[in-house]
């Protein structure tokens, strides 16, 4: 059991009619790992997550979850999963606490045990003071926290989080990250999808970049950056840049390893950002703003697809 992957997929395909949402992916997620799917809208992240969650049947390919076959043992697998779907599906007419207790009962837990876990989890996601209140007036971040608490009510071996923090303000996101990080430290296996490279960098030991239903790169956040980007990035904004960034890129030819003109700025990829900046000045260019930063997964994505991740 120890070395057996919790998720094993080979050439996994999901089609809707003649549209291919997931186009032959391979996955292996080991116990205790925090694994991420990074990709733009429509990449096939949720479709993959639903297959892993045993609520969607693969069109073809091999899939084993917790060492079992979803087609035959879906119920037994789901009993050991915790799922936080992309769209919240809390019961709006029940209280916050009832949302947890009724859900716990779906896993066959006794009334007393359900109540005990509900109280414990409300504490964990800091919603104890809202226990008796309705779900409806909760903020987006609170609803998300409640959905995550609900996903933990059966003490799952594998937690699936589909865009846990999309649409939340930075403060709410950080609180969620901190909670998820705690879970990870307890050894819970986490699989999450995200549009946010900072989220992926913070939480994931290993991730795959998906685009158009395919995995286009995989590895740890650091190794992806090392493979597909330079150590640093120089961001230049020019006062008349909007239409002329293409021209500026031409003038920057040879500075750093690669130049990427975006609509609002020009990116210069270089292992030494300050040296690259000195070269920019030497060529007599006068950007209105300058930023030297470390490479991120956003840059990896741009390099791999020629597109930005969040549109």
């Amino acid at each position, binding site marked *: 059991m120890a070395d057996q992957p919790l998720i094993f997929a080979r050439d996994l395909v999901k089609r*809707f009619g003649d549209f291919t949402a997931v186009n032959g992916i391979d996955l292996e997620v080991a116990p205790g790992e925090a694994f991420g799917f990074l990709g733009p809208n429509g990449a096939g992240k949720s479709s993959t997550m*639903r297959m892993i*969650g045993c*609520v*969607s*049947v693969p069109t073809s390919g091999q899939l084993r979850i917790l060492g079992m076959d979803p087609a035959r043992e879906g*119920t*037994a697998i*789901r*009993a*050991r*999963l915790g*799922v936080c*779907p992309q*769209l919240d*599906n*809390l*019961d*709006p*007419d*029940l209280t916050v606490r*009832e949302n947890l*207790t*009724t*859900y716990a*009962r*779906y*896993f*066959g*837990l*006794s009334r007393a*045990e359900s109540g005990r876990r509900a109280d414990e989890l409300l504490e964990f996601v800091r919603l104890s003071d809202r226990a008796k209140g309705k779900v409806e007036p909760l903020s987006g971040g609170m609803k998300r926290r409640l959905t995550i608490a*609900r996903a933990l009510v*059966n*003490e799952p*071996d594998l937690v699936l989080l589909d865009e846990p923090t999309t649409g939340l303000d930075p403060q709410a996101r950080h609180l969620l990250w901190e909670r998820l990080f705690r879970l990870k430290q307890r050894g819970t296996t986490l699989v999450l999808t995200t549009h946010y490279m900072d989220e992926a960098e913070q939480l994931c030991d290993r991730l795959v970049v998906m685009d158009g239903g395919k995995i286009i790169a995989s590895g740890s956040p650091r190794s992806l950056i090392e493979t597909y980007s330079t150590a640093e990035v120089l961001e230049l904004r020019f006062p008349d840049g909007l239409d002329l960034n293409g021209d500026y890129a031409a003038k920057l030819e040879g500075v750093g390893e690669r130049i990427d003109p975006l609509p609002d700025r020009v990116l210069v990829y270089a292992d030494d950002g300050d040296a690259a900046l000195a070269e920019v000045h030497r060529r007599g260019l006068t950007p209105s703003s300058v930023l030297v930063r470390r490479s991120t997964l956003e840059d990896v994505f741009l390099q791999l697809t020629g597109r930005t991740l969040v549109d």
Partner: protein
Amino acid sequence: MTAGTLHPTLAVFGRQLALYRRLWQASVFSSFVLPVLFLVSIGIGVGRYVGTLEGVDYLAWIVPGVLASTVLQISMGESTYAVLGDFKWSRAYHAMRATPVRPVDIVCGHLLYLVLRAEVAVVAFLLVVVFFGGLHSPWSLVAPLVCAVLTVATAAPVTAFAAAIDHDSYFALLYRFVVIPSTLFAGVFFPVEQLPAVVRPLAYASPLWHGVELCRAATLGRVTAWPPVVHVGYLLLWAVGGVTLAVLAFKRRLED
């Protein structure tokens, strides 16, 4: 992991009860006060002009009809918008689907809850009716049993319908062309024998009429014109067929 003890069907039933605890006040009027008002106004008011029907006073004659049509109202009221809503708006069924709860558990938990809802209304209604002298036989005790079968026979196919459609405008059609006509012509207010022979088969096809016939035999303490096993068998056919279709519809809708 803790070993499961509670059956998932009962867990779904439990969720429905938790919802009912929040929303029961809204249902008291439609499932209890309204039928009694109905009975009083039509049974006593109209009864003054009708006098007796088939040898009993009109009030006693329509008691089983109002009883069965109340069951139909509850079946309909809880299996249309509520079911579609749990697919489309709250997505509560999708939440259940991600757990060990299977589509068959969702359908059965829902129906079990409806039987309870119907039984509460039925028993309350019968207790009131006793004071009006509306029950003529100890066989009346069988009426709640008939109502339980009628609940499933009507709620299950409607649940299947709600799980198969995408827009609530279909419910208006269901009410207009199925529920209202069957309430009017299924022997609730007058015997189906008074209908023109061509439309009578429609009454015979309706599960409501079979429920009404059985309830009437029970509360008036007399035999049905058709063998009771035909009525019961027909209701069971709707119940089993309805549950089968509902489970299939839930499976299809929750599996994408």
